[in-house]
């Protein structure tokens, strides 16, 4: 069988390709659009959420730091206001005040000192040896004498340790003096040190020069230029509303870093939180990876499915096209049969009438020869024999035309009860002349009392005709034998047609019922005969099998369901052995 796929490969290839592309587009595009929308919505809301969280956190901590500084300033201011220069210049008194603070707030204030207008420390309470320290040249002293309250940047100072101071300026009897407190760096540092998020998120404080006012975070080099951005002239607008500033920038290594910052200490310091964007949005990226993977797997599945569907559809369409083609050929063949039937009916009538006249004329001569005058004729017996032969051959002509007619007329596919033996005899009779011409004897071994078959007689006749003609064609002129046998078992009626012909080789045997497959020479067989037989027998809920080997003849066995309507059988075949 030559499939349509191999006959019109380009057409089915392009059909397959079009189906594949259509399925892929129709399935993938909505998936991609939907995925894109989900990704956009999820990413936007996730980033907003992270931003809101970081902003709130920074704001809260900045407020804590500011509160801390304001409280410390308030402590010192109230101390200076409450006691005055005289009392505070007393070291012992100052020590007691320091103790009071440390009892109330812990070791937040390291030491206290009173400094006169010349920068000399007149009294000191604290752990360091700074009793007579001179701060006249110190930077913080210069700033402190110019403002009521002053908080310095972090510096090393005389004690060579990082610290910062809060100083209050007082006027007494026309003289300026300062009360100074040193804020414990560790205590202050703790305010920002606990701010940690993810693997890379941490906070720190810098002054306007970009100098760190807290510990540098471990294993991190802070890009000062980035930090300084917080103090750029165009940015402070963000701080006016007391709202933290949020921005992401790319560092020297090409990483995107998120900065959240808020000014402290009247804009002199800034609390900065920084985190790698990859770290900050790790959940987002994780979700994105999963989504991409799902999309890739889904896409792959769609492509696979589209390939399968397109391939299957193309095959099904090719099969349907092929079935249509076979049907078309069958219709054409049926049309031919119907035309032949009509022609045969006309010819039969035209032939039977003259034959009837011939037979009657011969009969008339016989009648006349019965007269006494002819009884003594020399050749009377020869006349009678010859006339008898004319009559006999006339009747034979009638039988031939009747059979031809009965074959041609049955072009309908009505289901009816009939006797299979009778049908076999009729068809065998029709092909007997052809068989004799090829020196083939047809032997029939038909079973007695075969149950009737309920089917289309015309169609079964076609099956028999095809099988017998094939059997004759398979036997060459040297002659051979065709055996037809019928039998029945278990409500099934069987018939077999066995020939002594050339047989069918193993490879061909598998394809023998395929449409357009033929072992006959080109132009002799359509390759439809056995395929039609197969279709007809299958339609009747029967089966057809073939046993054959090259050079050993073939045997076709057909099984058909027997009818239960025994009593309605139109003919009961008188069976037995017969030879034509």
């Amino acid at each position, binding site marked *: 069988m030559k499939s349509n796929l191999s006959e019109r490969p380009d057409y089915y290839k392009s059909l397959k390709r079009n189906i594949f592309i259509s399925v892929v587009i129709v399935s993938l595009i909505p998936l991609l659009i939907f995925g894109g929308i989900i990704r956009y919505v999820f990413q936007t809301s996730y980033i907003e959420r992270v931003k809101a969280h970081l902003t709130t956190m920074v704001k809260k901590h900045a407020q804590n730091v500011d509160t801390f500084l304001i409280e410390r300033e308030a402590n010192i201011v109230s101390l200076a206001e409450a006691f005055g220069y005289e009392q505070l210049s007393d070291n012992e008194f100052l020590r007691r005040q320091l103790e009071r603070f440390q009892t109330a707030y812990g070791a937040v204030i390291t030491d206290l000192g009173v400094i006169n207008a010349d920068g000399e420390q007149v009294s000191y309470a604290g752990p360091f040896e700074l009793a007579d320290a001179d701060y006249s040249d110190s930077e913080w002293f210069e700033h402190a004498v110019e403002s009521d309250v002053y908080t310095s940047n972090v510096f090393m100072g005389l004690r060579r340790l990082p610290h910062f101071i809060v100083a209050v300026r007082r006027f007494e009897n026309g003289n300026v003096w300062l009360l100074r407190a040193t804020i414990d760096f560790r205590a202050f540092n703790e305010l920002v040190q606990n701010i940690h998020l993810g693997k890379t998120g941490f906070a720190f404080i810098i002054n306007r020069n970009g100098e760190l006012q807290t510990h540098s975070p471990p294993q991190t080099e802070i890009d000062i230029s980035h930090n300084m951005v917080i103090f750029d002239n165009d940015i402070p607008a963000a701080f006016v509303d007391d709202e933290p500033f949020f921005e992401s920038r790319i560092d020297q290594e090409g990483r995107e870093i998120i900065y959240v910052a808020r000014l402290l200490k009247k804009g002199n310091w800034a609390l900065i939180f920084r985190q790698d964007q990859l770290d900050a949005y790790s959940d987002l990226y994780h979700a994105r990876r999963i989504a991409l993977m799902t999309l890739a797997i889904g896409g792959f599945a769609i492509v696979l499915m589209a390939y399968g569907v397109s391939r299957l559809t193309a095959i099904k369409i090719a099969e349907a096209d092929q079935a249509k083609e076979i049907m078309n050929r069958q219709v054409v063949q049926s049309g031919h049969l119907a035309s032949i039937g009509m022609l045969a009916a006309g010819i039969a009538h*035209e032939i039977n009438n003259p034959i*009837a006249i011939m037979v*009657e004329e011969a*009969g008339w001569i016989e009648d006349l020869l*019965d007269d006494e005058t002819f009884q003594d004729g020399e050749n009377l017996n020869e006349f009678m024999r010859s006339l008898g032969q004319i009559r006999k051959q006339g009747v034979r002509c009638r039988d031939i035309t009747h059979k031809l007619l009965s074959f041609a007329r049955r072009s309908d596919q009505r289901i009816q009860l009939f006797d299979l033996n009778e049908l076999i005899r009729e068809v065998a009779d029709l092909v007997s002349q052809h068989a004799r011409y090829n020196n083939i004897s047809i032997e029939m071994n038909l079973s007695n009392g075969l149950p009737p078959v309920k089917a289309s007689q015309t169609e079964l006749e076609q099956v028999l005709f095809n099988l017998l003609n094939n059997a004759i064609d398979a036997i060459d002129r040297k002659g051979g034998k065709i055996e037809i046998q019928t039998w029945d078992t278990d409500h099934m009626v069987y018939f077999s047609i066995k020939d002594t012909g050339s047989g069918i080789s193993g490879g061909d045997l598998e394809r023998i019922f395929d449409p357009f497959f033929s072992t006959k020479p080109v132009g002799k067989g359509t390759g439809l005969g056995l395929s039609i037989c197969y279709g007809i027998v299958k339609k009747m809920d029967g089966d057809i099998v073939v046993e054959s080997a090259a050079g050993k003849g073939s045997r076709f066995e057909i099984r058909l369901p027997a009818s239960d309507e025994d009593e309605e059988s139109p003919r009961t075949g008188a069976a037995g052995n017969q030879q034509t």
Partner: protein
Amino acid sequence: MTPNDSIKPIRLLLVDDEVEFTSIMVKRLGRRNIWATTANSGVQAIELLNQNKYEVAVLDLKMEGMDGLETLKLFKSKAPDMPVIMLTGHGSHQAAEEGFAHGAFDYLSKPYDIDDLTGIIQNAIFERKKSP
């Protein structure tokens, strides 16, 4: 069969459009004591039936003009008791069945044996006489 003058001949109407056929049949049937009147069309047969009485009719089913079945229907309306034997050239059982449905007595396929025909004719006459 030999003619038997002592028995009253059977009057038969033979309808067939083949003149050669009807003329030879008249001779052959005449030798068998059957007097056949021939008609070569349905119309002619009806005219004859209007004028005469026949014991039995033999009618070809396929004729030019009025065909056998139509003629049969008219026969049955004019002479319901007259048995009609049909002849058919193409051996169609279907046509014969239609003929039976319209009251035909029997049918024969051409060509036939004359003895078969005379047998059926005598049988038809016997059956006719038997019925009241």
